[in-house]
Structures are given as structure tokens and as C-alpha cells.
């Protein structure tokens, strides 16, 4: 029983990170129909920038905030210089562009930072807390708490603010949104800034537990994508559920089946979801009009 609880704790911790990456996918996908394969690089940039800023003497909270701002700026630049010029390109073209962007960002990180593994201090120490025979790290609670705050804040943003509703309107129908006076270019920029910032926050929260290095991005992007697909592409609530589910599946695979193949769980989930219910748990079935 305590074993199971232990796996659930670790599953929820990584699951919360996957949920944040999936949320980043969802926001950009909704605003622009682009699946941004460099989403994982935002998590890496958030963690790595914090590490190097705090090593340079910036206090940790300030370093974390700066890292989020830097990453958001990278997100905006990505939209401006790589996605916008390729408007109306085919899906395959955009996929190759965003994969190119992720490889490019990884290459830059490898030179600006380095190729080592890094971490910084946990926010509230490393003394494990015991619950019903299982233990949880204080930092895990930070991760789960941080993810919950972000999801709650976004819920409020999308349902209670005019800008949030403008994003939803753009997601629904870009032309109609433009006709009622919404600046869709600004919405695109905002979406990239927002999902980059969310990715960076995930990187800041999780680095004390999982460590970070220049090449953690691909695996995170893939798992975030798997989570987004599991929940139903384009649905923020689906991203949350998909992320947590994927985290749990992975932790249980590692605990009960094989830890070497725990990473395979995500891909088997992707393939299974695609074959059985291509629109995910909460996705609407797409209707193709000819």
C-alpha cells in the first residue's frame, strides 16, 4: 500500500510537469494551429537560466523570475522570426520549422551554458515528509502546488478577462475574431509568451528534483505532447488530466514493470491513444469538410 502511494506521489510530481508542458502546447495550438515541438526547450531554458543566474550571484527568487522573463522573450522571438514568416505553410513544413527551432535552442544552450547536469537548492529544504508510510519531498509539493496555481490562474484569465476571451475567440475562428476587432497578431504573440513562461515555470519548479541539462527538452516535449493528445489536443482541462495520467502511468510502469522501459510508457500511450481514440479523452472529433 505504501509502495503504491509512493508511486502515486512521484507520478503526480512528474505528471504536474507534463501537464504544464501539455498546457503550453494547447495554448499555442489553439491560437495558431501550430504544434510547437520546441515546447520542451522552454522548460530547459527556465531551469538552466535560473541555475546560471543564481550562480552569477542573483538571489534565487529573482533569478527564477528573470529566467521566466527571458524564456517568454525567446517564445516571442520564435513566433516573430520562425512561425510568422511561414504562415500558410503546410503542416509538415511547420513541424520541421519547430523541430529546427528546438535543435537550434538546444545548440545555443550547449554553448551559452554547458553540457553538465545542474540543480539548485530546493525551495524549502530536502527533508522528506512522511505520509501513511510513503514519503514526499517538499519540492514535489511545490511542483504540484505551482501547477495548480497556474491552472487556476489561467482558468480565471480565459473566463473572466477580455484578453482571455479574445484568445478563445481567436482559437475558435481567426477570421471572425479579426472581424470583431481582435488583434490576432497580438494574440499569437501573447500565446507564445504565455506558453514559454509556463514552460519556464515548470523548469524552475522541477529542477531541484530532476536536475536539468541542455538536452532535456526533446523528452519533455514528447511527453507533454503525449499528455496533450491523451487529454484531447487543444483542451486545457484535457492537458491537466492527460499530464497527471501520463505521470502516473510512467511511475507505475517504473515501479511494477521495468524502470528501463518507463520512458517507453509515454510512447505506447501515444500510439494506443492514436489508434483507439484519435481525438483523446476530452477532445472533440474533428470534422473534415471537403
Amino acid at each position, binding site marked *: 500500500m505504501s509502495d503504491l502511494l509512493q508511486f502515486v506521489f512521484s507520478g503526480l510530481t512528474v505528471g504536474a510537469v507534463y501537464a504544464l508542458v501539455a498546457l503550453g502546447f494547447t495554448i499555442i495550438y489553439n491560437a495558431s494551429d501550430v504544434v510547437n515541438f520546441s515546447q520542451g526547450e522552454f522548460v530547459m531554458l527556465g531551469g538552466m537560466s535560473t541555475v546560471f543566474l543564481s550562480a552569477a550571484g542573483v538571489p534565487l527568487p529573482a533569478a527564477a523570475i528573470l529566467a521566466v522573463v527571458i524564456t517568454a522573450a525567446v517564445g516571442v522571438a520564435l513566433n516573430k522570426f520562425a512561425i510568422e514568416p511561414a504562415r500558410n505553410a503546410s503542416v509538415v513544413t511547420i513541424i520541421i520549422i519547430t523541430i529546427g527551432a528546438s*535543435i537550434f535552442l538546444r545548440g545555443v544552450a550547449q554553448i551559452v551554458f554547458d553540457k553538465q547536469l545542474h540543480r539548485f537548492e530546493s525551495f524549502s529544504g530536502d527533508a522528506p515528509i512522511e505520509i501513511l508510510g510513503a514519503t514526499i519531498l517538499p519540492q514535489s509539493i511545490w511542483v504540484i502546488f505551482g501547477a495548480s496555481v497556474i491552472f487556476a490562474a489561467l482558468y480565471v484569465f480565459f473566463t473572466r478577462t477580455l484578453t482571455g476571451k479574445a484568445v478563445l475567440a481567436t482559437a475558435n475562428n481567426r477570421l471572425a475574431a479579426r472581424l470583431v476587432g481582435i488583434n490576432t497578431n497580438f494574440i499569437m504573440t501573447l500565446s507564445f509568451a504565455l506558453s514559454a513562461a509556463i514552460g519556464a515555470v515548470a523548469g524552475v519548479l522541477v529542477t531541484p528534483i530532476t536536475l536539468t541539462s541542455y538536452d532535456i527538452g526533446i523528452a519533455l516535449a514528447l511527453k507533454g505532447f503525449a499528455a496533450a493528445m491523451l487529454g484531447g489536443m487543444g483542451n486545457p482541462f484535457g492537458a491537466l488530466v492527460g499530464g497527471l495520467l501520463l505521470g502516473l502511468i510512467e511511475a507505475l510502469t517504473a515501479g511494477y514493470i521495468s524502470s528501463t522501459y518507463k520512458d517507453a510508457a509515454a510512447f505506447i500511450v501515444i500510439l494506443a491513444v*492514436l489508434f483507439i481514440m484519435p481525438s483523446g479523452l476530452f477532445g472533440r472529433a474533428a470534422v473534415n469538410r471537403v
Partner: protein
Amino acid sequence: MRHLTPKAITLLALVALILVAPLFFPSSFYYRVGTLMFINGLAVTGLVILIGYAGQISLGHAGFCGIGAYACALAPVHLGLPPVLAMLLGAVISGALAYLVGRPILRLKGHYLAVATLGFGILIFMVLSNESWLTGGPDGMQVEDLGLRALLKSVGISVPAAELWYWLSALVLLLGAALALNLHTSSTGRALRSLHDSEIAARTVGVDVAHFKLMAFVISAVYASVSGSLLAMMNKFVSPDIAGFLHSVQLVTMTVLGGAGSVFGAITGASILTALPQGLTIFHDYEHIVLGLIMMLVMIFLREGLVPSLIKRFSRRQG
């Protein structure tokens, strides 16, 4: 040139390049770079059939390279097969696997297809790196030599290994290119290319869309497998990296850089991206940056790839 078909022009140009290039080779190192170009060119020619003709993407094709490579490493040891048969076995396994997974995977489109093929490739990579008892794990394993050089020596011909591999891989590439070009003009090729423009339109004129997509996937998997086998036998060594995500991405980048719709273009793309890291020793640290930049810039500014874009520009000026 008017009565030469584009197919003949492409093949003649390739033959000429293959024959003339060695005249400028100052050392055997250049034969090796040439060989790598041809081996990559072969895998990329397969991707032209999949991406360029049929309009389907695969981000997991290095997985098939891995199967071909490990077939050449394992079959001689465990099954006692000679390397040539091991290569064929690898091709058959790759083709069969592509047939099996292709059916469900190719129902998907766009990003879903990209991610599914990517996941498939990574699964192959994981098996190759985790099943150390069989594959030697991340450290890789030795591969038996093809034995062609010993055979030639026994009849009194002595060729340096680098040169032999140059001519051998050139021959395989020419064969692969000729088959791909033949496919282009055949009725099957026309059916494939109709998918690229519009699957719905293709279906309405009676093209069995699922069948042709699957066929393109299987053929391109066999190309990748043979390319992996050749690479493993030339290096006499193989590690799971050959099936890695980066290799898959490199193959797709080579294809679109040169021009996914043209065999000659794609081989040009493969040659450029193969030669670039060899030419610049400093390149190693910047490999990711350059690869990423090339992918973005080509897709933004030269969407059809280098060769088709240049040809278009050139012929417009003439006409």
C-alpha cells in the same frame, strides 16, 4: 538535351559526379566522406518516395537504419549468415515491420503522424540501447566485414578499403536512385504523387489511398535499412545512435534541404549536410545550431528545397 528524359539526365549527372569526384581526392579520407554521402543519399532517396512523392512525414526512419545495421551485426554471429544475407534479412524485417505498423500509423495525418513515427523510432532506439545482452547496449558492438575485399584479393585484385566502399556505395545509390526515378514516372508513382496534392481528390478518382501510402512507407523503410547495413559494415561497428532521434531528423533535413520532390535534390541535400561537419572541425560544437538554422531557413525561404528552387529560378530567367 531535348530528347533526354529528366530521369536520364539525373542518372547521367550522378554517374558523372561519382566518376569525376575521385580525380580531386587528395587522400583516402575523401573517399570515406564520399561513401558517407552516398549511404546517407540512399536513405534520403527512400524518404523522397515517402515525403516527396506521397507527402507523408516520418520522424522515425532512423529506426529502420538501426534494424538494418543490427541485422548485419547480429545475424552473422547468431545465425551464421554471411553479411550479404544479413543485409537482406534486415531489409525484409524492416519492410515487414513497416507493413505492420504502417497500417494503423498512416491513418494519421500531420502532427499526429509525425509524433507516432517519432515514438515508433524512439521505441526501436530504446530496445537497442536497453537489451544489452543482445546488442551490447549503449556501447554498441562490432560488425563483421562484408568480405568483398578479401574476395577480390583472392582473384588478384587489391583495392584499398576506402576506395572499395566508395564504388560499392555509389553502385547501390545509383541502383536505388534508378528505382526511385522509375517509380516516379510509373502509374504507381503518379498515384503516389496524387496523394501529395490532395488525398481526397486522389480517392475520388479511385486511388486506393491507404494501399499506396503503405507501399511508400515500406519501400522507404527498406531503403533506410540497407543504408544502415552499409554504414554498419563500413564502420565495422554499430551503436544505438544510428537509430536515434537526431539521425531521423538529419535524414528528414537532408531530404527537405535539397528538395523532397526530387531525387537529385535530396541526394544533393544529403551530400551538403554530410560534408559540412567533415569540412569544419570546429563544427562539432555548433552542429545543433547549424542544423537547426538550416532546417528553419530552408523551410521559411525555400520551401521546395535548394535544387527545385534554383531550377525554377534558372528556367524562369531563360523563359
